[in-house]
């Protein structure tokens, strides 16, 4: 007899996981009394269902006026982790607002709500049970209605924008200062600085027409020569490159191109012709830009 009972039990428990277990609903209603007209009441509901079921958002209670005295104002549902083997839990928070104006303390009923789940075996509906609360009048029923009974208006809250204005102005000033500093550093207009001769020369060369070559490059070469003069502190000739680098070691990285520039310049200005000049406009512009970069302490 006992063995048979155990066997039946085993059979039942063995079958049980195969069938869908009942959803479990734990309702945590707000306190049962002490509510006035206009109050919001929050109810927490924990729902445990079989794993694999998901909340069907279309089948949640919809925030809406439920009755002439009761609104559902908010519905929030979120997963609450595992609830034992093969089960999963959801947290449902329902917020109601009462507009009932009772003449004396009175118990009201919040009606049951349903939540739909969808799963592999079709939809499952879970019912959140109804619950109750006691609401009371705000004031004595026979008290006269006088203006003095009215609470004063909430003073008009003026948003103080002064800190924001100050912050905006400060940020703008900072931005302007930064741009000015950058322009100064890179010798942009209006900072055509005398101590940035290579930047000025690079500007002159950049303004030469793109197809300039041969003797047409002379103004560009001359501009770069003047920049070397200014940087060297006196007129610089090709044989001064060593002295120049000793005085301005930062330009050491451009030694090869500088020497090539002076060689090309001699050919361009002083030899019988500029045939075979291996210095085109792009190379000249590249050298000037590189020297300008070194000059402002940038890349070598």
């Amino acid at each position, binding site marked *: 007899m006992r063995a048979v009972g155990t066997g039946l039990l085993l059979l039942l428990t063995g079958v049980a996981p195969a069938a869908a277990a009942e959803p479990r609903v734990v309702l945590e209603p707000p306190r049962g009394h002490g509510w006035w007209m206009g109050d919001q009441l929050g109810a927490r509901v924990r729902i445990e269902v079989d794993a694999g079921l998901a909340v069907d958002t279309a089948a949640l209670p919809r925030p809406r006026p439920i009755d002439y005295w009761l609104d559902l104002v908010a519905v929030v549902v979120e997963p609450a982790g595992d609830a034992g083997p093969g089960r999963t839990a959801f947290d449902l928070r329902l917020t109601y607002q009462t507009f009932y104006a009772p003449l004396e303390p009175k118990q009201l009923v919040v009606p049951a709500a349903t939540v739909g789940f969808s799963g592999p075996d079709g939809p499952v509906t879970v019912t959140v049970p109804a619950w109750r609360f006691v609401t009371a009048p705000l004031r004595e029923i026979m008290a006269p209605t006088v203006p003095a009974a009215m609470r004063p208006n909430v003073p008009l809250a003026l948003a103080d924008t002064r800190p924001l204005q100050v912050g905006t102005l400060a940020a703008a000033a900072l931005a302007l200062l930064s741009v000015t500093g950058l322009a100064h550093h890179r010798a942009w207009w209006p900072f055509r600085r005398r101590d940035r001769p290579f930047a000025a020369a690079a500007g002159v060369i950049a303004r030469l027409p793109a197809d300039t070559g041969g003797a047409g490059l*002379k*103004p560009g*070469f*001359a*501009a770069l*020569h*003047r920049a070397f*003069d200014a940087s060297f502190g*006196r*007129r610089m*000739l*090709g*044989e001064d490159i060593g002295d120049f680098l000793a005085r301005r070691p930062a330009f050491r990285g451009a030694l090869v191109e500088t020497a090539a520039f002076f060689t090309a*310049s*001699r050919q*361009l*200005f*002083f*030899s*019988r012709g500029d045939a075979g000049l291996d210095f085109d406009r792009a190379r000249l512009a590249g050298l000037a830009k590189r020297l300008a970069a070194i000059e402002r302490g940038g890349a070598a």
Partner: protein
Amino acid sequence: MMYEFRDAGPVDLGEWRDRALAFETALAGAVVGQDATIRLVTLAVFCRGHVLLQGDVGVGKTTLLRAVARLVGGPYERIEGTVDLMPTDLVYAAFVAEDGRPRMEPGPMLRHGADLAVFFFNEINRARPQVHALLLRAMAERTLTAFQREWSFPHLQVFADRNRVEREETFELPAAARDRFFMEIPVDAPADPEVRRRLVFDNRFHDADALVAALPEGLLDYRRLDGVARAIQREVHAGDEIEAYVFALWEALKHPADAGIELNGVAMDRLVQGGASPRGVSTLVRAARARAFIEGRDFVIPDDLRAVFPAVMAHRVFLAPVYERRREALVPALCDAVFAKVPTPRAPAAAQRGARL
């Protein structure tokens, strides 16, 4: 490059450049630590210009000149300047012959006739102005009148030296005389301690005769130097840009105040009184061409002008009397300032504006 000359046959400038470098190397072996001086002397030789060396006593001026004479080859003569030296002493040798009668024979300058290649005048500032005058004509025209006829010295190159230590019993060269020297080259004792140590302790440098005798005689053939010098002047190109630069340098040297040059404690508008003659400036261009040739270029660049400028131009600038005493400091500073101030090369538009200078 082969060029034909009536008097000298074809000149291969490439080969002559090798010879010029060999000449410099040989000189540098005999006179150590004087590379700058040697370069200038070489340029003078290849321009057929007369040279005045000046420097302290015992820095190797005479050794250098003897070495140059041996390497150039050809007859050379040498005379010491003294207070009582007379012009005739250069030209005639007067003596009493064995038969007891006075005789007059060709003196140092005439002894070798037209072949005379190098003439040394030691301590030229000890000789009297009469002697200077004779020498000036010999230098400028390469001719002399003696024994009732004209003597010509087509290959003559005059080297003179003077020491700048002594001022007593000396006759300062007149401006005209200085202008006729192609270059005035300062010779200073070497600054390098190692070179100075060698000069003092190395026996090789104690016997100047042996040092000079070890040099290859006639490395440069003095008879062909004139043709080579002409070929250099003809073949080395000095273009418009160099012309403009030379004119700008010239203007800046003559009118330093206008060029914006300032020297400490000097009234620039009164500093330069004269000089920087057209002859001087043409000499500058000749020397620059020779330097371009030795550097292996066939065109002159500003660096050439700068390298020869002090030697060629410094002694042709005449300062106001108040500044003449400080000449040795002021003139080099002025030359340096000229090169620090005059821009080159210039953009085409700026060059045209400058052309009216």
